[in-house]
């Protein structure tokens, strides 16, 4: 019974401390708001996903062509738009990165 009481009490104390820890660690935080990505970060994320998708599709197309799943005609028709899409996404990402850099420089 005593052992059970000790373990029970210990468990309760550990759990209370665990839950209260963020408040104990920072009783008066400078900023208590939950970080959310701003519009720029969300745009960057969408562009990065689009870039990865386009690059993966290009890689897949090359491989399918090599293994004979895609004919030469289909390959020629498909590869152009995919390359354009990947290039557009890369350009847009570069543009976005330089805009952010400019903003940081202006603020700094």
């Amino acid at each position: 019974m005593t052992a059970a009481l000790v373990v029970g009490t210990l468990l309760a104390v550990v759990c209370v401390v665990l839950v209260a820890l963020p408040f104990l660690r920072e009783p008066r935080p400078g900023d208590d708001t939950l970080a959310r990505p701003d519009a720029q970060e969300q745009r960057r994320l969408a562009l990065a996903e689009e870039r990865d998708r386009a690059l993966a599709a290009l890689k897949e197309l090359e491989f399918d062509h090599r293994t004979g799943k895609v004919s030469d005609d289909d390959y020629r028709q498909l590869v152009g738009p995919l390359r354009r899409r990947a290039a557009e996404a890369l350009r847009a990402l570069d543009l976005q990165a330089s805009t952010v850099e400019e903003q940081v420089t202006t603020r700094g």
Partner: protein
Amino acid sequence: MADLGRAALVTSFLLLLYALVGGSLAAWKGRRRLAESAQNALLGSFAATVVATAVLVGALARHDFSFQYVADHTSRELPLGYTLTAFWGGQEGSLLLWLLVLSGYSVAAVLTARRVGREVLAWVVPTLGLVGTFFALLLVFVASPFATQAAVADGAGLNPSLQNPYMAIHPPMLYLGYVGLTVPFAFAMGALLARRTDERWIVATRRWTLAAWAFLGIGQLLGAHWAYVEIGWGGFYAWDPVENAALMPWLAATAFLHSVMIQEKRGMLKVWNVLLVVLAFGLSLFGTFLTRSGIIQSIHSFTQSSIGPWFLGFICLITAGSLTLVFARLPLLRAKTRLESLVSREATFLYNNLLLVALALTILWGVVYPILSEVVTGQTATVSKPYYNFFLHTFGLPLLLLMGIGPLVAWRRASLRALGRTFLWPLAAALIAGIALLAAGAGSSRIGVIAYTFSVFVLAAIALEFVRGTVARKALGGLGWAAAFSSLIARNRRRYGGYVVHASVVLLAIGVTGASAYETVRESRLKPGQSMTVAGDRLVFRGFRSRLESNHRAIRGLVDVYRGDKYLGRYTPGKNQYFAEDQVSNEVSIRHDWLTGGDLFLIADQVNSNGSIDLKALQKPLVNLLWLAGFVFVGGALIALWPDAREERRLAERYAGATVRV
């Protein structure tokens, strides 16, 4: 000690409630410290549940019959291994296992979700808290494993069919699968609540979904093998509602694992994917409800069950809540791209999805219909094997074929010429196999010939994929054959791991077809010295042998098996009489033929007082491929699950700004 168990469960319940309420408030109002505190509450709930589990395991090990649960499910003579597995042998223990696995998954998933984004994670925590609160609530207020009584001299024992080594691993595997589906559900809901419909929730849950799906698959195969060797009716799957309960979420999760690739590669099917996650999780809850509510035996036992109505209410709440959320976020989920061609890899994935979901829903209807029928008409209706077999053939055979077609078709679109080239060898192999099967007399089962022909087609397509891929990789990298082969797999683990899993499904299909379509069954009453014949094997009954074990008496028939003049060995089907449980179990005897993959399966249907035996003998061709499929499945799942450093680097770069410290 029961007080400690109760206190630990109450602590877990309060912490999960805090994770739900505090976490929701933190996510809604955007409070960082409160969100972290709610996350820590999940960690605390896991610790509390571990303590509760330790208390119950300790009580089982000590044979502490002051615990009602221990007295109801064990006895003093029960071997220690089975005494401990009684942890999940009853309702209350099973629910505790659910909570233990869920809180463990919750902590692990939240702590490793570095890339999901803090705003999404803030909503994931209360979603996990909601599910956990429900199970903790059941354990605290409705079905506590810590109910006590005046200690009795001995317990009621464990159901004999659960006294099998498989019971040590089969239920935990199933639970790891069922409960694991909570993780993709919580992240999908978290993403929708945070209005983030990018791929981060998919990336964060990819491995969790795959692991849950693999556990569910392995759990079902172990269950099938347990039924095969223990239940003693000669089969491995009986379309029993409890079996279907695990199959349905597995089918929905299989559909999700395929369709999510279309979202990753093409940005399509966002709504469908979220719906599949909801369906898979809903079906896993429904499966637990089916097995734990008592609704299966009779609608009346459902009304008597203490947890049935709670489960039904929670399933309705989850379904209605998540569908409302999906509907509210529809504008965010619209795809920007469309399907380019009906002959493309993504189109085959779509067909595969439709067939998988159709199969899952027809099985669901088969399970639900008897319950609805009893509610509406008051009469018991049964949905039996022919119903399920019809839909298995209708949807399963095209699914099998699609497993071969999919890998041969390119993404986006495929021309006739390219299709002709890639399909040539698999089609030729299938055609030759079909003709050979008919020539060998396999035409007695039309379904059997179709299934085997499709199986050869799929295996040839998979082999061709590996060969062509290795040749291409060798040409690209100037590597040797072995290096090219391993580089092929290492560069796309999910694809080639998936192909290995496909191969395991083909082995399973071959095993199931052999054991069902080409099975031979003979029954006979034999006196000592008499014999019977099954598929060319002569079985001679020699008499009985009886042995006293710690908790049962084992009676075995002695059957000598001959093929022609060759003696193949002595086999001993019989029965066990359990003392404490006052029950009799069938103990089958199986002769495995490793060369042909078939089994001679012997059942002592009746042990008669005049010294005769009612012997049932089944020849099951190729049935062992079913168990081999399990090993191949595990291999494929491990390949797909194995971390990919290249992919990790790419994702780290992509989500660099969104990575959170947790």
